[in-house]
């Protein structure tokens, strides 16, 4: 194991009601990088993320996060997780949502203000979460993941439903966080977000079919953009599976 890796997975299998959701996953996520997790919906991205945060029951394999087994008590302050659906309390205000999770983490009160500014929710911080737009709700959820400055951020489709400007701002935030040493694993199905990542993992039907840098992927496939590169890789994998 390389000590510069935040996450190391070996031989991971996840089965759900007799179907294999993840198959023989081996991967590592280097510290301080933004790693994109890409793939068609239903390919197992969310399951892989839940396995890393320790809330997914696994069939076999090992998952190490900062040298500890995933789900270890010591990791509960080190990982910020944002699920695909906004896991927030609709009947609390933005501020109250953040403040409750801040208390659970035991981080300082000033954290709430910092996070509200980072995700750009200053103007609605006293509004009830149920009155917010879909994009605002998912930013509250992202804000909760940022509380307590975790060393690893696991973000499941954080930019879905956001306009291009906001999306750009958030990717700027991710890059700043990575520059300060935070490791980010970000799933997306918007391929143009791929080029903003340091490294890309492509998932198809529960297997990792590519693990490379954005430039490396273009070279390996001879494609001109990532959209095309992924199509090439997906078709290649489909052919191999059929053969």
């Amino acid at each position, binding site marked *: 194991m390389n000590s510069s890796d935040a996450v190391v997975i070996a031989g991971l299998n996840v089965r759900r009601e007799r179907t294999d959701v993840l198959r023989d996953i081996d991967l590592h996520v280097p510290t301080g990088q933004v790693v994109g997790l890409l793939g068609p919906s239903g390919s197992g991205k969310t399951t892989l993320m839940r396995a890393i*945060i*320790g*809330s997914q029951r696994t069939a076999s394999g090992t998952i190490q996060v900062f040298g500890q087994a995933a*789900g270890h008590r010591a990791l509960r302050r080190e990982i910020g997780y944002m699920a695909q659906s906004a896991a927030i309390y609709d009947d609390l205000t933005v501020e*109250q949502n953040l403040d409750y999770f801040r208390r659970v983490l035991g981080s300082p009160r000033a954290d709430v203000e910092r996070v509200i500014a980072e995700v750009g929710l200053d103007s609605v911080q006293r509004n009830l979460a149920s009155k917010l737009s879909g994009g605002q709700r998912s930013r509250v959820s992202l804000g909760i993941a940022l509380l307590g400055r975790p060393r690893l951020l696991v973000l499941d489709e954080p930019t879905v439903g956001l306009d291009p400007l906001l999306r750009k701002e958030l990717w700027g935030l991710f890059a700043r966080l990575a520059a300060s040493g935070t490791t980010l694993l970000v799933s997306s199905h918007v391929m143009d977000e791929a080029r903003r990542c340091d490294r890309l993992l492509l998932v198809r039907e529960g297997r990792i079919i590519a693990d490379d840098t954005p430039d490396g992927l273009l070279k390996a496939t001879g494609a001109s953009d990532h959209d095309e590169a992924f199509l090439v890789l997906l078709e290649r994998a489909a052919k191999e599976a059929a053969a």
Partner: protein
Amino acid sequence: MTPRLTLATAGRVLAQIRHDPRTIGMLLVVPALLIGLLAWIFDDTPVFETAGPAMLGLFPFIVMFLITSITTLRERRSGTLERLLVMPLGKGDFIGGYALAFGLLAVLQAIVAVAYAVWVCGLEVEGSVWLLILVAVMNGLLGTMLGLLASAFATTEFQVVQFMPVFVAPQILLGGIFLPRDQMPEVLEAISNWLPLSYSIDALNTVTTDADATGEVLVDVAIVAAFAVGALVLAALTLRRRTA
């Protein structure tokens, strides 16, 4: 369990309810109004004196069961529970927070309902009014714990609402309101001995009819509390950090 986290969770649950004044209003007023209705229906009969005390235990039980099972189901479905369980929050803090918050609401509800029954409807209480309130609150806590437990077995709101008759109706029928328990068929009496509501209805009847039975009432309250703790332990087992 950490007091700081339990209190934070209780505060959060109360803040959620504070944003829903209609629920608070119904919680506090509806039991009193229904008790008033019962007193009115049986105006010139002794029925209110015998059935009234049991009502004071039923309402907190039913209401807290419903509210808790629905809110915890929402926590499970919205992903907030999963989020909390990967954070440094103990299962005891989660359950304790709910027990504290809904326990407080049960206290307020019991005070309003008992005050209305005693001073407006003229329910005669031989024992201590505070003891009556204590039994009512214990029933609310029992409802909260059973609600937490029931939410684990429901995947939709429709299911969880239907757990209410499953958990509650048999306890009401066998609890001794319609017929004293010792006059029921033997099998049913034996079953009723294993239902917590039987003990709280006993306790409520004892407080209202006997001035010197505090000890007896406290034994009943302790039995109901033991059931609540049992439900709490089972509910804690259903909170899994890892799920399929």
